[in-house]
């Protein structure tokens, strides 16, 4: 993929200019973004740092987190210049990473395993194909962090209808009925959000769609292992506290 590139620019020309050094070395999109505002590494804007900590991180890096050290590449004066520039970011702008990625909740190892099983990326998102919990997944089915149901295998059977458009018949969840209707087509392994003319759509309240068929990839034991994550997510709700 596109590279996490740190550029060797003609160092002499910009030796003392922390802003220019930052632009060239730190502001690349995989890292801290323009003026420390974005990137996949943490946003620097809005934090209050200790300048000697910044100096040592820029020098030695944070190897475990993928932050490279620059001591082999920049002189001490240059690192100082970058540090001075980074210190100017304090207190400005919002803290959240623009991509929302570093905002992911850190869980205990047990809960982490439970969450991984719920989303189960290696099997096309598992429950996350249809349920959003704690900021991951698709909002097709009900919000499981607000639900009281523990019927993880079978769901509730509520809300799914049989839709007919011309010769097509498929299970669906209708979102906004009207002259233009949006509905989830559940006849696809990855649910499809379709937009159809209300006049073309017929629905039948009865449906043979079966939640259990969608959770077949999970053994009973695995469904048990998912429970702690849902329990945790339910406790996070304001009204649950």
């Amino acid at each position, binding site marked *: *993929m*596109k*590279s*996490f*590139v*740190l*550029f*060797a*620019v*003609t160092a002499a*020309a*910009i030796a003392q200019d922390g802003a220019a050094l930052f*632009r*060239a070395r730190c502001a*690349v*999109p*995989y890292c801290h973004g323009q003026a420390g505002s974005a990137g*996949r*590494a943490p946003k620097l804007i809005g934090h209050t740092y200790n300048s000697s900590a910044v100096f040592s991180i820029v020098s030695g*890096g944070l*190897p*475990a*987190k*993928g932050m*490279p050290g620059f001591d*082999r*590449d920049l002189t001490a004066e240059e690192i100082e210049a970058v540090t001075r520039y980074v210190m100017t970011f304090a207190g400005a702008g919002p803290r959240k990473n*623009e*991509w*929302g*990625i570093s905002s*992911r909740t850190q869980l205990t190892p047990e809960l982490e395993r439970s969450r*991984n099983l719920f*989303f189960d*990326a*290696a099997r*096309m*998102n598992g429950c*996350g*194909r249809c349920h*959003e919990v704690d*900021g*991951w*997944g*698709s909002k097709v089915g009900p919000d499981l962090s607000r639900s009281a149901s523990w019927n993880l295998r079978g769901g509730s059977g509520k809300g799914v209808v049989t839709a007919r458009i011309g010769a*097509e018949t498929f299970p669906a969840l209708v979102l906004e009925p009207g002259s233009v209707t949006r509905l989830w*087509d559940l*006849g*696809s*392994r*990855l*649910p*499809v*959000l*379709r*937009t159809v003319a209300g006049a073309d759509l017929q629905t039948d309240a009865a449906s043979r769609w079966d939640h259990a068929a969608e959770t077949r990839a999970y053994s009973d034991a695995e469904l048990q292992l998912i429970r702690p994550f849902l329990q945790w997510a339910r406790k996070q709700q304001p009204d649950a506290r």
Partner: protein
Amino acid sequence: MRTWSCLFVVVANLLAQADWGTHGGNYAAWRYSSLAQIHTSNVGRLTPAWSFQTGDIEHGLQATPIVQRGVMYVSTSQGWVIALNAADGRLIWEYRYAPENTAVYGKQNRGVAVSQGMVLLGTADNHAVGIDAQTGKEKWRVNMEDTRQCGCNITGAPLAVKDVAVFGVTGGDSAHRGYLTALNIRTGRFHWRFYTIPGPEENGHETWPGDSWRHGGGSTWMTGSYDAELNLLYWGVGNAAGDILSKNRRGDNLYTASVVALNPDTGKLVWHYQEVPHDVWDYDSVYELVLADLPVAGKMRKLLFHSTKAGYTWLLDRSNGEFIKAWQFVKHSNWVAGITEGGKLVGRRDPEIGKGLFVCPSAMGGKSWNESAWSPRTGLLYLPVVEACNDLMAREQEPQEGQIYIGGSWIIKPPPDGKIEGYLAAFDPLTGSRKWSLPGKTWFMASLLATAGDLLFTGDPEGNFFALDARDGKKLWSFQTGGGHRGGAITYAVNGRQYVATPLGWGSFLGMFHLSIFPDAPAPRAGSALMVFALPEVGQ
């Protein structure tokens, strides 16, 4: 120059008439048109016919437009799709994708596919979208995988093959397991997903120790090719993750840095060829796969040329994946000592933890993703080459689902003899001998376009859009468009008049580094526009 005449060429030529129907101009990714109204003797009179501003300038215009039956479809970085009258640039409709999540890997979009009355779009938040080509109304959208979870999204143009649209995915630098996904063009329904990394019990899984397969990268961020006669879909697969860190994934790491050939009806693997076993240099093999039939040792062969970041062009037999040859197209290469006649890498130089290793070409690639052109008339393959090296250093890192997983760093360095440079070069694809080259002021980051008028078109970061004589590289015409070029120029005809269209407006991930690499050159101008040229004396 030789003229290759064989059935494949003839058929492809007929299809290439008038329209620019698919991302690569045809399914064989030639970026060549048989239109010849504009040719070497009249190209000097080319004048602007119309232009259009998309208004979405954040990452420039990187797309290759599609033209079918007089309508041009172009997509912008945020996923706006615009349909224009291809003869005069009048707006027919405009669709603006309403994202559900913010983007990872930046907002980039390299184009749409158009088929069966639908326009197919991949989005920066990893959705696939089907739009009615008549009305511009969204018919369906599918969340391919939560972008927040996977650290992946879609930047490449999908490829429509029969009833399905095939979408690639980014995420090769994240802890992610890459794939291709095929959806029904009309309904968006799921057909198949091919994981580029085999799961437990699949062939090739043994090339990934432990759980490393779950986070092994293998993205598919560019567009594949298709051979209808063989019914094979070809796609390039990206680097393994962590890119530089070898320790967690000892083994060949199939099918990263490989070409895969799939049955488009089922998504099943028919053959694969791994160009870079156990990639540790971020040498994605995701770029365009050029399909052509040429005689090798007196025998007509169905070939696939694949020019990649590693600075080599691989020649494979596309019916079975047999290795024929690999030749080096960059001048500076030291990641291996060479590639044997059997395709084996010899003299590998693998980066180590905590130690810098000077390697050429750099992780930016001996060529970037901007696409090559192949002219069956001149028999030459045209490549935008980049000469650059880097210091690679591996670092310990544990993968975390969807998070960046590089396991090291790159520091871009000039080659031993001086400076980072880019140039266009024309090669005999069978021997790798270079026929001509044209140096850039900086480098060339736009895709190339060859025509039967023996012209080669492209643009540069400085804003010039120009035409060369495809036979000898002589510059015949140039026009200052006012914006840097990073998209794909096309040509097409409406009512007997040939047009040449170029996207313009600087952007892209690599585009952001331009100033660091060329500190003395003026900054390429941003923007997002189409500029279309034609001969003044024809039509209207």
